């Protein structure tokens, strides 16, 4: 499936998107000529050097930023104002330090006005689902980085958006923890039938998670290439490194990315 023939059925489309910050002489162009469509149920990894506008793209589809040129559409409609169909998970978890793990996960359910029993039941389910059993009553300051990520993920799932936007959520974690969370994220996204837009600057993470990888140039970010990851949807992430396709696709991505890293200011 390529961008053009999926455009008709796409859940999200970016058409000729450009974005500049600031006015006049001090304005900087961050994104240029972005054309991309994402189908329902797809996992798309956005890969590019730091500062190339990846986060900006997520903010545009969430309705937090308006593009300078072009249109972003969600489910056929131009995004105007906040897009409540998406849930956002950033590099920082943005948990409420004054609430316990359970209290944090419960927040979106409270906003939705659910009954106390319904909330308690759902929070218990989610805590189970993300593997936080026994930590329900801990405060964020008492748990590890990985558990904070799990809490943020559970809160995102409690909100139950159609689409998950994730902005380098695992970049601060060690390799093993990251692998575990990648496995669980892919499984959950598939099982719950979500669409996932995942920003990363880590090439292997993009391959591990993505059905497709979108490679960006250094700022101003353009799409250099969109690659279909030749790995099955039910890939076994633990054994990915035994698969010959994995290093091959990583090498291909590296050949695209490396020149951009040289262009990108440190």
């Amino acid at each position: 499936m390529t961008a053009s023939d999926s455009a008709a059925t796409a859940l999200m489309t970016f058409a000729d998107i450009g974005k500049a910050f600031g006015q006049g002489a001090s304005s900087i162009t961050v994104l240029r000529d972005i054309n991309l469509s994402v189908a329902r149920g797809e996992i798309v990894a956005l890969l590019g050097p730091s500062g190339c506008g990846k986060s900006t793209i997520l903010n545009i589809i969430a309705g937090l930023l308006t593009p300078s040129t072009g249109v972003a559409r969600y489910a056929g409609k131009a995004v105007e104002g906040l897009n409540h169909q998406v849930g956002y998970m950033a590099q920082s978890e943005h948990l409420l330090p004054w609430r316990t793990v359970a209290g944090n996960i419960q927040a979106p359910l409270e906003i939705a006005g659910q009954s106390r029993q319904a909330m308690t039941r759902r929070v218990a389910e989610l805590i189970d689902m993300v593997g936080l059993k026994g930590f329900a009553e801990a405060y964020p300051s008492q748990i590890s980085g990985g558990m904070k990520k799990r809490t943020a993920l559970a809160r995102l799932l409690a909100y139950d958006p159609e689409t998950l936007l994730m902005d380098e959520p695992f970049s601060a974690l060690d390799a093993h923890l990251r692998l575990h969370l990648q496995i669980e994220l892919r499984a959950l996204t598939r099982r719950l039938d979500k669409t996932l837009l995942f920003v990363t600057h880590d090439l292997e993470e993009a391959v591990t998670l993505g059905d497709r990888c979108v490679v960006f140039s250094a700022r101003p970010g353009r799409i250099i290439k969109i690659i279909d990851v030749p790995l099955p949807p039910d890939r076994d992430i633990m054994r990915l490194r035994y698969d010959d396709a994995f290093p091959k696709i990583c090498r291909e991505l590296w050949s695209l990315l490396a020149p951009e890293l040289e262009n990108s200011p440190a």
Partner: protein
Amino acid sequence: MNHAMKIALRRILIIGVFLAIWEGASGRLMSPFFISRPSAIATRLWSWAIDGSLFINMAITAMEAIAGFVIGGVLGALAGLALGRSPVLAETLNPIINAFNSLPKVALAPLFIMWFGVGYEMRIIFTAIIVFFLVFLNTYSGVRGVSRELVNVFRLMRAQERHLMRMVIVPSAITWIFAGLRLSVPYALIGAIVSEIMASNAGLGYLIAYYASQFNAAGVFAALVGVMLLSFLFNAGIRLLERVLMPWQEVDEQREVTI
């Protein structure tokens, strides 16, 4: 002996040495007419404690200070939350509020006596105004300091302003609100006592003014000890309230700190 006991012992030692020097100096280096002496002050306090006048006057001052504290604190926090969340309101009102705040509040006391008489109402309103500004300014900067990213995360999850207030704004501003309240304790006492000194026939401020007019230094010092006791109780009350309202802070304090 544990750490807390050692610290307490050191404090007692310092106070003891101070009192001993005072007792020794009185009558030898300086006239007891001016500085009285700890033993005389203790005797005076004891007699007030026995006839109950210490507690009655403390209670009167405490009631005025607490009423002013609660009224000023609540209004200050509400005003701080409202202005903190509404840029238009803040832009309009900030210069006016700052102008009022720059007035020394004590200078207003005579005006208040003129308006509200010399009863407890005047003393409560006077105290409330002092506390209002301190709590308002702290709450306002607390609300302005709330992470806007955090607010956006919740707005994306369909949070309305009332959800934001309850889940994000108030809890994150509450440490600031308490900073304002803690700062207000001495000022609430100043408010109550200054207005008692100026116009009253009861309360610790009245005792201070009365014994000073009688040139009775022991009485003045004994009343001051009452003020210190009151301030100590107030601070303990605030700390208790903080514990109850911010349980997550205690958890954070007890956490072992790393880098």
